[in-house]
């Protein structure tokens, strides 16, 4: 046990130095996915045929193909047509595009769960559909979507690990490096798994806190 602790103490600083990279990758991707997901959801609900089908196709393509393939395509495939991205950018773009497809569907479900009367009340006051969405429907839908969105946020935090395949030195890549240097894969992957667990648990706690703080009578899922 002492030996394990010594090993951990020795290599933890190097591992932890990957936390900012992992978190940055995650934050960029999940934020991009949030806003682009909202746009896609808008297209799926309110837009005319052309943007509707464009959004639907996009979602099906990105949900239907592996994220690792998408990432390798961006990093190794796109340079052939003159678009060259560094490893971090390739990973961020791939994860962001991928999560936007999933988030779009969560948002669509949440928006459509808000009774039509809410939008009609907004329209009857002279609001455009976009104003109705911003002032009335989204504030309700976003509260409702927090549980599913938490799932997606945690999932994507773990998915940042595949960025190691395109050479980003995030947590997993660092663990692998130490593993090959020391040949103590058992210990090092336990350690890095624990680091992920701390991160995901923290994110889960924060989102639960947000869910409680924004709860409104008659709207939150808890109060039923």
């Amino acid at each position, binding site marked *: 046990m002492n030996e394990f602790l010594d090993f951990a103490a020795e290599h933890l600083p190097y591992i932890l130095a990957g936390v900012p990279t992992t978190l940055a990758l995650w934050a960029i991707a999940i934020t991009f996915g949030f806003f682009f997901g909202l746009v896609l959801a808008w297209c799926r609900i309110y837009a005319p045929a052309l943007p509707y089908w464009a959004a639907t196709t996009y979602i099906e393509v990105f949900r239907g193909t592996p994220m690792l393939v998408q990432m390798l395509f961006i990093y190794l495939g796109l340079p052939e047509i003159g678009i060259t991205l560094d490893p971090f950018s390739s990973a961020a773009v791939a994860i962001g595009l991928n999560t936007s497809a999933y988030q779009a569907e969560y948002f669509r479900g949440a928006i459509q769960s808000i009774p039509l*009367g809410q939008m009609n009340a907004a*329209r*009857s*006051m*002279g609001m455009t559909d976009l*104003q109705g969405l911003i002032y009335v429907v989204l*504030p309700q839908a976003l509260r409702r979507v927090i549980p599913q969105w938490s799932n997606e946020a945690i999932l994507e935090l773990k998915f940042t690990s595949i960025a190691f395949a395109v050479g980003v030195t995030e947590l997993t890549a660092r663990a692998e490096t130490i593993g090959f240097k020391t040949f103590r894969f058992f210990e090092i992957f336990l350690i890095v798994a624990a680091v992920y667990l701390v991160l995901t648990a923290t994110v889960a706690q924060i989102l639960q806190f947000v869910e409680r703080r924004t709860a*409104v009578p008659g709207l939150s899922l808890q109060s039923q």
Partner: protein
Amino acid sequence: MSALLSVQEIRKAYREEEVLKGVSLELDKGTTKVVMGPSGTGKSTLLRCINYLTPPDAGRVWLDGEELTRRNLNRLREDIAFVFQDFNLFTHLRAIDNVRLGPRKIRGHSKKRADEIARRELERVGMSDKAQSYPAELSGGQQQRVSIARALAMEPKVILFDEPTSALDPELTGEVVAVMKLLASEGMTMLLVSHEVSFARSAADEIVFMEGGHIVEQGRPSELFANPQNPRTRRFLQMITDHHDPDTPDRLAGAAR
């Protein structure tokens, strides 16, 4: 065009079924009209066609001399407030914020001004003490009063009421009717679809009786209630004054034919 609200030859069909077969009516400033009639005769559809919540198939609507078009729809809707049967208060907002949203975001008033308006209108409907409550914490009658305050806060030229008491328990309709009577007496221009006989009798300037997508008869409440000319009007009024149940006469009238 002297009338504040003028509706001409509104037609609306759902699939094959024509619900409105060319309905016209005019509403003068400061007057109250109540549209009555058996259920399924297009009363609510008429109201929703007036502000294009349900776009009519044909017909024209003027507000204060300006014709409603796709282009000016949102601007004119600011002046045509709508009170819904099931309230439709914004679930995520406290009562005061429900009332404040329109003046602040749509009318573009300052924060302070919007706040003043919201407080004034909540006071007017007797809901000041519930300003901080969420809709889910209010009774149906209270929710409807807040939604009337929300309509008033837009400082509209006319308010359309779509069966404002139909979703309420009988003991709660009184408080909403009282608010509507107050507004009528203050000179608000109002068009209602309602079965509230007591309100129609005492507060309406005119009753419009609709059946089968047509206006069958209209007149002052004293005349219409005392001496309806059309036999259908007579039968309907008899039923609702006897039973206060708007659904019964429709079925009975159908059976009698």
